[in-house]
């Protein structure tokens, strides 16, 4: 039996509908991108301090698993971009759109864009 703290019973998150998933995808992709940015910036700034090391690092991006990771990052960026545009439309445009459909659409467009990237990368 669950129990003890009353909030253990009452604080269970209410999940499992389309826009909640859109929300958590937007949040998690945002966190992941924010964590990736310092690494991204550091690698690029090698061009200033240590150009040979930058080339070594870029050679590392030829590894298959790095390509998959790159695809993941592009996918997250596309998700955050298109998901964010949907939110801006919801908040600032004076029309009521079918937001479940739009959320599904952002997923499809993101998969397409990052898929194109992946096909170019391999």
């Amino acid at each position, binding site marked *: 039996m669950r129990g003890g703290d009353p909030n253990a019973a009452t604080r269970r998150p209410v999940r499992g509908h389309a826009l909640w998933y859109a929300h958590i995808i937007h949040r998690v992709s*945002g966190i992941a991108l924010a964590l990736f940015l310092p690494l991204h910036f550091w690698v690029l700034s090698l061009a200033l301090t240590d150009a040979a090391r930058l080339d070594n690092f870029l050679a590392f991006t030829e590894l298959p698993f790095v390509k998959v990771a790159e695809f993941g990052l592009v996918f997250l960026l596309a998700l955050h971009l298109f998901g*964010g545009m949907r939110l801006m439309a919801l908040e600032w445009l004076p029309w009521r759109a079918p937001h479940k459909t739009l959320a599904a659409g952002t997923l499809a467009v993101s998969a397409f864009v990052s898929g194109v990237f992946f096909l170019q990368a391999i």
Partner: protein
Amino acid sequence: MLDFRLYMAQRLSALIMAPLVVGHLAVMIYAVQGGLSAGEILGRTQGSLFWALFYGGFVVAVSVHAAIGLRTVISEWTRLRGGMLNGVAMAIFATLLVMGGRAVLAVTLV
């Protein structure tokens, strides 16, 4: 009013970034063909005022946007509040701005 100001800064930085991210996605898809090399990247960006402004604007907007976004997530998912919370957000902003600014300089300076 802090909540409202942060909201506006978050949304305005998002609107600035939207076209920049579309551009960045296009550049990535174009540039990744045939593999990445320092020479190729720097050949495109070094000495270019356009790319300096493009990525410079990107860095400023993303620093604002990510700091506010992470501040919200941290406040909802942890117990951090008040001055500590704002301190962490400012630290995120400063870190991204400095590191990003350095990266933009590195790839655009001749």
